[in-house]
Structures are given as C-alpha cells and as structure tokens.
C-alpha cells in the first residue's frame, strides 16, 4: 500500500516525477524528504549517506538511489521494506528499458510515458504488474530518445563512478526493437570479487558474487537453452576442496523466468527471458578461490629522517598469461600529517600513472594492461609535516584495488552452450556473450 511515488533529482531539488496514489499523505512530501536529506548532510557531513527510510508524522519514506536520482515511496502502512525496495529498483529498470536510458533528461523528455507506465504498475497503491510484456501492451506513448552526445556524457559519468552496471549492453529502448534490425540477445557473465588479505599475502576472506545477466531484444519470449560447466557442486562442505570436486556454490538463485529443473543434474537451464534487462541467475562462491591479484606492501621508516617514510607496493597478476586487466587502480591512504609525496618507478615501465590527492591523503597508482604472470612495483616516498611515529603505519592502507578483467571468470565458469529457439525466424538472432571479473571490494591490509 503505497501512498505516493516520486523521483527526485537531489542536487537541485527538482521533482521529476510525482504520482499521488492514495491521497493520504501530505502533498509536500518531496520537500519534506529534501529537507531531511539536507539536515542529514549538515549534521553528518556529505560522506555519510542517510539510512534509506525515515518517518515524519506517521508518513514513512522509503527511498533508493538509482544513478544519482532518488526513487521514493511514501506509505502510512507497516509494509515490507524488501518489497518496496525491490519495486523501486524494478521501476528504475523498467524506465531504462522503455526510455533507453535512465537520466534526468530522459525522464523530462518521457514523463508522460513514465506516468503511463506507473498507472499500470501501481493502482491505488497496490502493485499490479511489472512484466515488460504486459506493460508493452498497455503503454502507447513512444519513447523520445536522448540526443547522442548526451548519452556519451552519461556513459562517461558512468565510467567515473565505480560499481556501475557493466551489463548495460545497449541503450536502445526495447520498444524500438519492433522495427529495428534483427533480434539480438546479450548475455553477460559477471563475477564480482570480494577479498581482503594480510600484507604477507594470506587471504583473510574471499568471495565471488557471480551473476548472469541477459538483455533481450527478442520477440515473444523465445526459449533459450543455456548450459554451464558440468563440474559445479552445490552446498559447500568444509571438508571438500574444489580441486577434487569442481566449482562449489555456497548458494545460488534463479530468476522466475528460468526453468532450472535440469540444472542439478546437467547444469542446463531453460530461459524465457522477458524483454529488457534481467538477472537470470546469482551464485555465491567462497573458499578456495584463486585470486587474480596479490599485493605486497612494505613500510620503511627512513633512518635518521624521522619525517620520511617509504611505502613499497608490489602487485602480481596471478591470471593466465593471455588475460589482462584493462586498468588496475590501487588507492593507498596515507597518514594525516603527510605533506608531500613522490614516487619512484622500480622498473621504468610507462603503462602506469601516479597521482596524489592531498585533500584526503590518498595516493592513487594506476597500472594499465596488467598482463597475467607479470608484476609491477612502486615506491612511494612520503614526507611528513612532523616526524612519523610508529603509529603512522596504522594510517597507511588498507590498499584498495579496483580492476576489471575482460574475458575471464575467476571461478572458471563458462557458458558451454547457448541456443535460441525462435519461431518463424529464418535468420538466427545475434547472440553476444561476454565475461567479466571485476572488483567489488578488494582490499589489502598493511
């Protein structure tokens, strides 16, 4: 039972979309939210995000941040937060599917399309449907595409913001596929890595969060058959090791559109993908993970120079030699009293760069095209405003790695077979399969 739905652009406080659903909450709700966000930032600083829920006068605000826009529901009922947050996320995906991209500009251009969608998604505060197929038959407005150069700006912004969705393979609205070109399907296999390890290389924690994402421009939900490696085992047991038994899933789940009845035995699934973007499978693997990178930091206090310190960092790529990371960025927090920083490249290679951000005392070292089987070394020389105590070591690190490795999955999971059974089509649809391993939280303690 949702009372209102709205989308805010927090920077300027603009209300991009606003829908009254039950008329039982104040109309100035968006302003209340903006006020609250402002007060929060004043009290807690901008680096603190407010918790995604609060209550004013018996009205509950639940909101999510979707690419810099706030998607908000208000309600007077004790609803399920999970359902609301899922719904907000789903609405964002639907808008992206129908309008091509999700941005302030596309919302402004397509507001009546968005209202049309909302009217079918929620009636009187009750969720009706979010199925793309159904919605397509109710929605009549045509999407207005955002101009090309704006898309480029948008995707640049994405590159800068880490953690954005690599899987957005195409920025076409799904409704355009009615007349455009042949049908296509994109499948992305993405493994996000969570790892932390000690300076001696010992792994403290490691996890692979894998997902298979599909973006379909196929008509009429044709059947897709997809098979993975056969050496997948479910339910990790402490006594088993992966060498013997294969790839072990701690847990996994499928999207509703997947028939996994053949998965246990043959690692096959039948997918009836809805148009647009869907995550068809998630899996989680922990333990016995061969991590792609190791980092070895050392700190040396320069003798007889109490205000000097050297931090040496070695990074080693433990991936096959024919694979490489596009870009590997290491962020090294340095002590608060750091005054100046210089670096010394140990091997003089030119595919790396170094920056120092004095504001937050972070050294940022970027290595391009880090190839499997190779290693790189850097020495960061730090001068402090006063002399460094032994405790200054505590302020160095943790070193954060950010990278993406194309055509590589950390778990060795591969798509073995992919077949689309499209009726009445002479030309087989285009299929695109991509693999990525990216860092979710890859941290080395110093």
């Amino acid at each position, binding site marked *: 039972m949702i009372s209102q739905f709205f989308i805010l652009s927090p920077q300027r406080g603009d209300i991009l979309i606003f829908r009254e659903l039950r008329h*039982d909450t*104040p109309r*100035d709700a968006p302003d*209340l939210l903006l006020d609250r966000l402002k007060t929060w930032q004043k009290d807690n600083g901008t*680096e*603190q*995000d*407010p*918790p*995604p*829920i*609060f*209550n*004013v*006068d*018996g009205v*509950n605000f*639940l*909101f999510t*941040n979707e690419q810099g826009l706030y998607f908000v529901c208000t309600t*007077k*009922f*004790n*609803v*399920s*937060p*999970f*359902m609301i*947050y*899922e*719904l*907000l996320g789903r609405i964002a995906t639907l808008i992206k599917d129908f309008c091509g991209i999700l941005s302030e500009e596309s919302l402004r251009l397509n507001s009546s399309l968005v209202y049309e969608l909302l*009217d079918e998604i929620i009636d*009187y505060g*009750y969720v*009706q*449907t979010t199925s793309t197929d159904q919605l397509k038959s109710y929605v009549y*407005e045509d999407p207005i595409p955002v101009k090309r150069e704006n898309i480029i700006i948008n995707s640049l912004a994405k590159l800068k913001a*880490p953690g954005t969705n690599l899987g957005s393979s195409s920025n076409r609205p799904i409704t355009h596929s009615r007349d455009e070109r042949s049908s296509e399907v994109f499948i992305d296999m993405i493994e996000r890595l*969570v790892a932390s390890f000690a300076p001696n290389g010992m792994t*403290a924690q490691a*996890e692979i*969060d894998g997902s298979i994402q599909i973006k379909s421009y196929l008509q009429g939900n044709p059947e897709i058959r997809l098979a993975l490696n056969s050496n997948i085992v479910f339910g990790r047991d402490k006594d088993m090791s992966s060498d013997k038994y294969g790839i072990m899933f701690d*847990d996994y*789940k*499928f999207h*509703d559109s997947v028939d996994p009845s053949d998965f246990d035995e043959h690692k096959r699934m039948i997918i009836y993908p809805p148009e647009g973007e869907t995550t068809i499978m*998630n899996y989680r693997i922990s333990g016995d993970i061969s991590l792609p990178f190791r980092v070895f930091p050392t700190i040396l206090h320069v003798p007889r120079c109490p205000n000097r310190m050297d931090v040496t960092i070695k990074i080693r790529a433990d991936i096959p030699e024919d694979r490489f990371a596009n870009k590997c960025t290491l962020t090294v927090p340095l*002590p*608060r009293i750091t005054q100046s920083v210089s670096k010394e490249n140990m091997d003089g290679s030119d595919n790396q760069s170094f920056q120092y951000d004095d504001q*937050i005392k972070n050294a940022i070292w970027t290595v391009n095209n880090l190839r499997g089987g190779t290693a790189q070394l850097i020495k960061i020389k730090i001068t402090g405003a006063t002399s460094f*105590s*032994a*405790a*200054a070591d*505590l302020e160095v*690190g943790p070193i954060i790695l950010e990278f993406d490795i194309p055509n590589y999955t950390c778990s060795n999971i591969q798509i073995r077979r992919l077949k689309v059974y499209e009726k009445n089509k002479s030309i087989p649809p285009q299929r695109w399969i991509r693999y990525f391993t990216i860092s*979710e*939280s890859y*941290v080395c303690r110093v």
Partner: protein
Amino acid sequence: MASGKVSFLSQQQNREVAELGLRLKEASENVTINHMGAQQTAKRPIIKKVLETMAAGIDVSSLFGDVVKAASTKDLVQKKLAYMYISTQAEQNSDLVILAVNTFRNDLQNENPFVRGLALLISPQIRFMDYVPYMVESLSHALIDSSAYVRKTALISCIKLFHLSPKHVLDASLIDQLYNTLRDRDPEVVANSIIALNSILHSEGGMTVDTNITHYLLQRLREFNEWHQCLVLDTLIRYKPSNEDENFDIMNLLDDQLKHHNSGVQLATIKIFIKLAEGIPEIQEDVYKRVKDPMLTLLSFGSPEIVYSCLEHIIVLMRLSRQLFQEDYKHFYRRFKEPSFVTLRKLEVLEGIATKTSSKDIINEISGYITGIDKVIAQKSIESIAKISFRIENVLSYSLEIFMKLLGTGIDNIISSIITVLEEFMNESPEKVGSSLSVLPSVWTSIDLSSQAGPAFLNLLTTVGCQIPEAPYIVESLIDDLENYPATSFRIQLLNSTVTLFLHRPAECRGMLAKLFKYSIDPNENLDIRERTLFLYRLLHKDIKKAKEIFTYQRYASKKNLNNNNTKMRDKHLPEFNTISILYGNNSEQFLVEPIPGIFTKGKDEFLSSPAHHISEFDELISLQTQNMTKDGFTLSTTVSIEAKKFKTYWENFTENYEFEVSLLDSSASLMSLTLDDIETVFEENNMMIMASGSSGDYLKFFLYAQEANSGILMLCELKLNLNSKLAKINMKIGHETQKMNLSLSKYTEYFSQYLTRYMKELTGLVTT
C-alpha cells in the same frame, strides 16, 4: 509594486490558459470536419501542454469542459491524457467532475477492454453521491467482464468506492462476488480479490483464511507474479495449521520460494517458516539454518537498501538464535564501496556474533576501519571493539593494545572516542587500564572536551592522578579556561575530579579548588552545578576524612554503560518481521498513525495548514531516534508542542491531578519586580512550555505543559503566583496522549512537582541579580 507584478503574472497565465482552451476548441472542430485519424492526434500536444501547465501549479479548471470533450476519442493516448487531467482535477474541484459522467458511462460500454478498464480506473474519483449506486452496479457487471484486465481493475475500484461510501459497497452483496473472484482463472484477478477483501474487511481482520483457501492459494502460488506472491504469503501468515504434518506440508511447498529472485518473496516466506516453527521447538534451529543462506546471499547481491533491511532482520534473528551466524562473521566485514548506514549495521551484527574463536579476527578487522576518513564509522568501530571485549573473556588486553597504538596517531576524533571507551574499560579491569594511562598527558590536548570524552578524560585522569605528576596542572589549565567548557556534565565531573585530586595532593590543588568553587557558585550558573558545588563544599568543610572515604569509594563510578544493549521490541519481533518496524527498531504503534478509512475526506488542507506543527513533530521524531541522552530516566522533551485545542481536551480528560503550594518566603528580595517574560524564560529554558499567561494585580497566572521524553507522559499545569504574599498555587494534571497507558503516574507526579518547585525557587535567584 509587488502586487502589480503578481497580477501581471496571473494575467499572463490566464491568457495562456485561455489560449489553450481556444486551441482545444479549434482542434476539435478539425476532427469534425475531417473525420480522419490524423486529426485526432492534433489534440494530443495541446492536452500535454495543459497537463504541464497544471503541473506548474496554474489553475486550468476553466478548461474542464473542453478536456472532457477531448476524452471521447479513439486515440488512446489522448484519452489517457485527458483522463489524467480529469482525475487530478477531480481531487480539487469535485463539482466539475459531474461533467465527465457521460464520458465514463460511454466508456464503460466500450468494446475495447482497455477503455473499459481506464474508465473504471478513474470513475470512482467522482465524489458525487448520486453517482455511487450507478458505480456499484457497473462494478458488479465489470467483475464478471470477459476481460481479465477489466475484472482486476474493477476489484481495486471496489476499494476506492468503499472508501467513498462504505455503506453502498457492504449493502450490495459485492463481498460475495469478491469471494467468487478469488477462484478466477486469472491470477492477477485473484490477487486483487485478496487485496479488496483485506481492505474492505479490514475492521474484521481482513479476508477469512481457512484451510481450503490456504491450500488453494499455495497450489497456485507460482502463477502469481512476484508482488502478488508477497501479498499472498503475507495473507497466509494468518493461517494456523491444524497439525504438525500440515506445518511440514506448507514448508515443503514453500521451500523454493526461499530462493526467489525477489527478496520481498524471500522474506515473506522466511516469516512463514519462522512462524510455523514457533510451535515445534525441536525443528526451530533447523528452520533458522534453512533461512540463513538466502539471507547471506542477499547481503552479496542486494542493493544497499536491501542489504540494510536484511542486516536489521539478521539482528532480530540473532536474538532468536545466538549461534546462527557465528561462523559466518566474515560476511559482515565491510565492503569498501558500501554506504555507511550498511557498515554501521554490520558492526552491530559483528558485536553480537563474535565468539572466543572469532573475536580476535573480528577485532583486527574492525580496527582497520578506524583510521578511515568516515568519523562516524571510526567511532562506532571503537565502540564495537569495546563491546566485544566486555562480552568475551581474554580479549580485553588485545583491544587495549590496539587502542594504545591508535592513541599514538594523534588523530583527534579517534583519541576522543578511545578515551570515552577507556573509562568503561576502567570499570571492567582497573589494573590493566591503569598502567597504560601514563599516555594521558601527551594526548589530552587532542581530546574534544566538549563531547562525552571530556568527563571521561577527567574521570580517568583523577583515577590515576596520584601517579601522573602533571595531573594538577592539566586540571588547573582547564579551570583557568572555564568559559570554554560550558557543558554541565563536564563541569560536574571537573568539580568531582578537582576535589579528588585535592584530597590526594592538597598542597598543589588548594588554590585551584578555591578558584573553581568561586566560579561555580555564581548565581548565573546552572542549578545542577551550583548544587553540586555547595554539596562538595559542605562535605569538605564538615568532615574531610569522610570525604576522602567517599571519593576513594566512587572512583570508578561511571554514568554510561556500553553493556546495556537496546532491548526494545524483543518480544514482539515476529509479528513485525518483514515490516519497516524492524528497521526503526520500534513497534509499529509507536510510529504508525492509523490511516483513516475515509481518507478522501481528509483533505490536503489539513496537512498544509500547520507547517509549524509538522516541523516540531519532525524534530521530536529525530530526537526520539537519538534519545538516551540521560540515564536517570526522567528527561523533559525539548521539542514538545501542543496546540491550544489539544491542551484543552487533555485538561479535561486527564484524571490524575495534584494541587500544591510553593512558598518563596525564604527569599529576602521582593518579587514585585518580576515580569511575565522573566518567568516565562526560566520555564522555557527548562523545557516547560508556556500555553498562556497573564497578570492581574499582584497575581501572575500561567498555563504550562511539559513532556517526559522517554515515556511521553504529559504534564499540564495551572500556576498562580501571588507576588505580594510570595505564594504560588499550582494545579497540575498528568496523563498520556493515547490514554491507554496505565503507567504508575504517581511517580511522574512526584517528579514534575519536584521540577516545578525547583524552578519556582530559581525565580528568587532571578530577583537578586
């Protein structure tokens, strides 16, 4: 000048609106001339423009007739746009909507099911009582329409109509029809039937959930879309299986839903599992284990908001089963990109699940968060380490070692937080902490003395004061700089500390103690400080030996206690599982204002009329969240605000009343110079709010109110002060807003009267200055 500008603007707006009207009329003529499809779309952009104008807050009600005409069209987009206009206008100008009745009637008969649905969607918004019987009739036809789209829309419209006129809906045997549509072949129709029954029968506890309907819905569960699965599961939670076998049957049927891609479905299922296991203790642990993995997976894949909700629910599950997550502690390590509200919750989980074997790992991990740039996380991390060290044996020295290293960094906020925590450690293990406190003189300048670290630092300093030669000089420099430290808690601790030091090292401290007493006895000082000063002075004056005894005894007394976990809502968690009350950590009745069924009549005006009221309650809510300011259990709310009307009702309804007199005769000064303003300031400074005040002759009269922040108990009081006879007559009433609370009010009567008396006495101090 300003008004000229406004009228110019509104003139221009009027012109714009009029022009839109003209264009609409012209466009409609085009259609009648040409009879071609292309012309119908000619109106679309105009209506869009009308909608934009409306969104900008300009009155476009004059166009109603034209837009209604535009609604009768074959162009579906145009129809939708026109309906959007009509539905918005319907809220604001209900009388106009009658004009649209004919359009609705026609559209309800349209051969296109989509048009019929659209008309059903909008028409209940016509708040025109004569129209209701017709609507009821149309709905009952629509409920057996051939199109599922029309049926499902009609079901939601039943709720709308019910809220408009409950009587008509209940009389018209619609309920029976709703139970019939539960068996519809289309799952969306079934789902909306459940929604409609739950809403219309809300006062009776919603739809009847018996064995038949339960098993029927469970069999069809997979046909429903994810949102409707949430709904069905939420409704089925009301079902009580007749025996254990049925319990297991249901769990087997629902097992797959634990892996559903929508976390709403997962949590609704988990709730049913927990509820079913409630009656069978021997399977409880197994059930908890069964639901654990799906929740951990959510932590890896959910959006930050879902991860946050999931963590709050894990905290609830931890209370049901302590061991459940103990081995999975690494899942709660921070991921560096996550928002801080997630990290803060993770720290709370880690505090609870640390065991003897994992605690060092966990403390080591958390200690890595402390030097980061986020100060809130740094502080919480320090507190978490402290809590783990208290709970688990033998890790205290390990944490102490980490803290001592961190003190060496010289970072202000870290040092302040650690000092606060060390005071707690001191209680726990004085020997271990005491020996490491020699660092105090070297770090004290980095401590934020105005925070709670201030008193903590003083307390620590005096505990080991005898061993630290610099101690008196640190205290002296603080006394010399007193105006920079106005916080009462700090000042009282300073008094205590100086006295303690004086008792150990009288020669060095005599001078500064005298100086401090002199400052603190100043009539402008806060009452608590003055009282404490007087007490200490008399104690030292009377019996210095006794004083020494007392002060050695209460050396480690500390006001805060990190060990007391918030125990709120422990018993009621299950019914509130998978609801937002878990996120607030409150029972729903504490934050939900029960929505009134006739919500349409509760117009927007009511919300907008008193913005000041909004803000005050808003503040109150915030303060409720951060509450626990003082531990003595009686704090006056700083944000209470009551309207005159409410005051009157409370005054009439509160039964607990208490009359007494306060004599101010012991003051030598005459009270005649006191003004209303003086007295009001005293009360308001002490969080007693003024409702009304007035004077006549020698009398001053006040109506005051105050609220105790923790219990929400209200105090209302009528105060008559005779300036001549120095006598105050007080009539006080105590009660609670909701009235249902039958707390022992007598305790509060006592408190409030004490407070009142104290502030009355303070008035005399006002005169002497």
